[in-house]
């Protein structure tokens, strides 16, 4: 039970990041590695602001728009101009990797590369049946679940959600209905920034942060997207939860240091056996090409 709970909570934090990735990938088809840079920046920025004001809601209120704003800036200054030039997906990926490297190095230059944590003092513990949850784990559980539910509601019920799904599904026809694609792309990047900030702050509060956690966390999220189904918003959540469980099992049965190896073996297995993911469907086009 404890293992499942640990896996679930870790899975939820990946799920937030996976949604952040999908929010950009589905509507824009940009493989957004800059996300890892934003993930790194968020806790450092939050910490700096907290030290200046000493009150965590202010820090959240400032770092959230700051990181989303940067995400929007990435689209406005990098991906949108590239799209207008009609470059390949590979060029988006490479430039996005470049943005990640710049951001991480800037963070290291300002704040150094020692491990840090947002939490001060010891964590409180809660008993849930025969398993124990720390306060920060409980925080992750509640915030992520609420956020994911709100997000899925927005996606299903509101017009905004419909438009995001439509943009993800068929951007050309979306534009032919008179919607300004550029605006909705910026919006997608901004929303992605919100999700990555919250995911990053929660994890930083729980287990701390270094400038190098961003890339591995983002890669985990991408793995969750692949095994969940890359053409859906729901699939990655399921994928993330599954991944969290698997990793928790690995920690329990073997050792924490083999988590990454097992994760990527799972990825390769999925890529080879079920490339469309848990929730994906083979489209007619894909099924045809041998």
């Amino acid at each position, binding site marked *: 039970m404890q293992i499942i709970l640990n896996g679930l909570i870790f899975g939820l934090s990946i799920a937030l990041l996976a949604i952040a990735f999908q929010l950009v990938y589905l509507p824009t088809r940009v*493989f957004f590695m800059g996300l890892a840079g934003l993930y790194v920046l968020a806790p450092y920025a939050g910490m700096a602001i907290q030290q200046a004001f000493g009150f965590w809601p202010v820090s959240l209120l400032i770092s959230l728009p700051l990181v989303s704003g940067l995400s929007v800036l990435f689209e406005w200054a*990098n991906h949108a*101009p*590239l799209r207008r*030039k009609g*470059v*390949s*997906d*590979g*060029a*988006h*990926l*490479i*430039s996005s*990797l*470049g*943005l*990640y*490297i*710049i951001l*991480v*190095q*800037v963070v*290291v*230059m300002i704040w150094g590369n020692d491990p840090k944590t947002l939490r001060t003092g010891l964590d409180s513990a809660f008993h849930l049946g025969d398993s124990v949850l720390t306060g920060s784990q409980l925080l992750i559980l509640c915030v992520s679940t609420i956020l994911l539910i709100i997000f899925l509601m927005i996606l299903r019920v509101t017009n905004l959600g419909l438009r995001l799904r439509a943009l993800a599904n068929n951007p050309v026809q979306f534009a032919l209905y008179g919607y300004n694609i550029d605006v909705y792309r910026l919006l997608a990047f901004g929303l992605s920034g919100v999700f990555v900030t919250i995911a990053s702050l929660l994890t930083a509060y729980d287990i701390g942060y270094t400038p190098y956690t961003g*890339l591995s966390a983002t*890669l985990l999220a*991408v*793995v969750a997207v*692949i095994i969940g189904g890359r053409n859906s918003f729901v699939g990655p959540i399921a994928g993330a939860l599954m991944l969290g469980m698997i990793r928790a099992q690995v920690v329990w049965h073997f050792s924490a*240091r*083999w988590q*990454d*190896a097992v*994760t*990527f*073996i799972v*990825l*390769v297995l999925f*890529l*080879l056996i079920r*490339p469309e993911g848990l929730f994906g469907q083979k489209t007619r086009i894909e099924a045809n*090409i041998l």
Partner: protein
Amino acid sequence: MAMNYIIHLLIYFDIYVIVALSLNLVVGYCGMLTLVHAGFYAIGGYAYALLTLVLGWGFLPSLLTAVMLAATLSLAVSLPAWRLKGDFFVLATLAVQALIFSLLYNWSDPNAPLGTWNNLTNGPFGISGIPKPKILGFTVTDSHSFFLLATVLAVLCAFIVWRLTSSPWGRVLVAMREDELAARNLGKNTRMLKVQALAIASGLVSVAGTLYAAYVGYLDPSSASLEESILMLSMVIVGGVGNFRGPVIGAIVLIAVPELLRFLDLPDALAANLRLAIYGLLLVLMMHFRPQGISGKYRLS
């Protein structure tokens, strides 16, 4: 002193040229973006280190074994390439790269001696005291003769790449890059082609890894890190893919950048980070203003 510094740079240039040319075989000629190259580089280095340090082998047999090992392990990338295209192939290479890094980092046990089954890599502490190359009873100790050795190997690798890319094999490789389906409909076994190209590229880059391990004498898992792969990729992309000159130019640029930074008199730690940031910036700027690289005609797709 100045002479030694130049020799040192030239040795690095030799190593980078091998890396860039071999990576170009995959990225430029096959059109497959890969992030696993540093993994095979490190495998070459580790194979050399263990064979010489633990088994006491000479340079040439260790080098050949390293090449064979890397070429064989490249199947881990080329088999997924049968199915996966584009971003998802990149991801698969990333997965293999994470696997290699994880193996090098974790295959250790502080209680077991280095090189045994329980402690193959010494984990995060790395392997130190890697012997200098011993060739036919002659040990290469000073940097001048090491430079000679590195240059001979770099020229050999360059010759192999040049000969292959200008051969009918290289022609089919370009055809596959341009339109894989059309190439297959001309009866070309593109699956085999991918296996061959990746095996050759991985074998060649393990030569560079071997040289690095022998020159520096110390190796840790960070040489298999993703950052290292990205660095290699930026070398090829900055120079321009799909031709012979581009990677060489890329290697020069990426060696020149940190050396120029030296003149700014920055603290050491800051300079290293600034160097990486500049590589990142180069990647972004190249994509915007010259996606075909400094001396390229073909654009990455």
